[in-house]
């Protein structure tokens, strides 16, 4: 910038009170050295988006887990019904085997 009318290396710079100039300088320096407030805001937005994605993914998993829980309950119920049927019908019939023709027929005997 030598030769520019605005630049006089012979005169020390006075601290500027112009806030816009200061902000611009801060922005320039932050661009040079790394994340600034804008980057921080962007990171926050990214973080929230990631959080939403995580909530969505976990919710999908939760739906599956909940569905499994309902199926497990249904299986337990069916197993219990089966046990009841086995204990109260099948085993009783087996004990009666040979006593009546009806039961013999049910078990394929003559």
């Amino acid at each position, binding site marked *: 910038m030598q030769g520019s009318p605005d630049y006089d290396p012979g005169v020390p710079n006075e601290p500027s009170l112009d806030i816009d100039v200061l902000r611009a300088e801060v922005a320039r320096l932050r661009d040079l050295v790394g994340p600034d407030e804008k980057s921080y805001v962007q990171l926050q937005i990214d973080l929230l988006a990631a959080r939403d994605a995580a909530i969505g993914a976990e919710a999908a*998993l939760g739906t599956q*887990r*909940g569905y499994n829980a309902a199926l497990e309950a249904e299986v337990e*119920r069916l197993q219990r019904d089966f046990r009841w049927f086995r204990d109260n019908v099948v085993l009783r019939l087996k004990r009666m085997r040979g006593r009546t023709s009806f039961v013999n027929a049910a078990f394929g005997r003559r």
Partner: protein
Amino acid sequence: MTRRYSIVTPVYDPPADVLNETIESVRAQTYRNWELVLVDDKSPSPHVRDVLREAAAADERITVVERADNGGIVAASNDGLAVASGDFVGLLDHDDLLTPEALAMVELYVDLHPDMDYCYSDEDLLDPDGNAVAPFYKPDWSPERLRSQNYLGHFSVFRSELLDRIGGFRPGFDGSQDYDIFLRATEAAREVVHIPYVLYHWRQLPTSVASGDTSVKPYAYVAGRRALQEHCRRVGIDADVDMAEHLGNYHVRRRARSDATVSVIIPTSGALGRVWGIERRFVIDAVRSIVASTSRDIEFVVVHDPSTPTATLDAVRLAAGDSSVVMLAAAGSDAAKINLGVVRASGEFVLLLDDAVEVRTKEFLDPLVALADTPVVGAVGCKTWFADGRVNDAGHVYHGSPNPIMSGRASYEVGPGGLLVVQREVSGLSSASMLLRRDVFEEVGGMHPFRTRSYADIDLSLKLRHHDLDRIWTAQVELYHFVDRWTDVDSATDEGRFLVERWGSQLAFDPYSNPNLQPGRGDWIEAGLR
């Protein structure tokens, strides 16, 4: 002299076989002293009159009223009531089936409950092939639930004097005339009794509400909402009534007093955890979330372990914004910390809150405050979710052993009988989010300082029950609860034994569950074969 039961059945154009089966189900009653009043609301099909006349000719206990014009179900039902001469009157739809022992069972319960003015029973559905499916095992008398849905059903029995007093069915409520009369009857009844047996089968005809097609009778829901709004006015509930997302259910939205003051009591150890991939200091986010979900001035009372970092406490103050914050350092169980917090609280209401929560609904406090601001209500709790969107807790059930209701179920489930979406009485609530009037908390002596928090919740809930104070659970308010603090009661431990010895039979039978459900579970599985 045995009591006489009148069954009143308005009839409008059912298929002949269906009507015959209904009539035969009454004739098959093992209890003999009954009359059946069939009111033909000028059915267009000639077979209806033939069936009714044949039935009346075959059994002198059957009376047929033939209306000159079609007046609708209210007019027909009132015509039936005018003719009924029994000590008790039962209502039965023209396509329902009574079980043979229905009236005998009602008679037994009248003997057991001399002040009984009204009773209802469990029910199931008959599919088109005639199979009994989908049993609905109902809770004992649950007025808040009735304000959320007409769970009482078709076959209800009224003492005749009660019907005389309340004046029968009201015109203008067609489609929900039964809901309206149930609301008025239960307001006036000395005792409402639930008979935990399936005493009738509700037939799934294509045109019946039981078919599940909610477009069949949309006018019924509008009338139901009006009946409920009028009920709220009669009993002094300042509320708006909305139809819920699931038709047939309603939201009674009470208005909370604007001058009600609330203290939020949070016991914490300042724990750190990872939720949805992000690390969080639970207590800070809990406070932030409560502040964001209410416009009320609230007070936070944070009772923290002495070792909680100062930076965490500073962050809590910052998160509380303009709300006042009381910080107390104390060692001990969460329950002990809550007791200490309530002593220092200045609010009229105290919200007991776990630190690992995040509010899901827009307005969190007002619906809870409005519900708790009633003399008969001891505590109010809300629907909580795991981080993955499954139901964490929908209240407690103490049926055989204490359990969280429908925990682990998917977010889309409404539960049996709408359990997960209707506001209702429950036996117990979790202190992950429980709101009480401070004077109630003090009256019952606060929480017993169990080390296991769920034990302290059970104990507090049963103390409220012992003081005849209702515990209400609502689905209108929701929050995430990131920690599963439920611990099964283990009577091999000192604490578990103490809890069981203190409450004994109170843990065995839950009035808001049902004897037909399997004990020791919170998922409403039937106890016997379907």
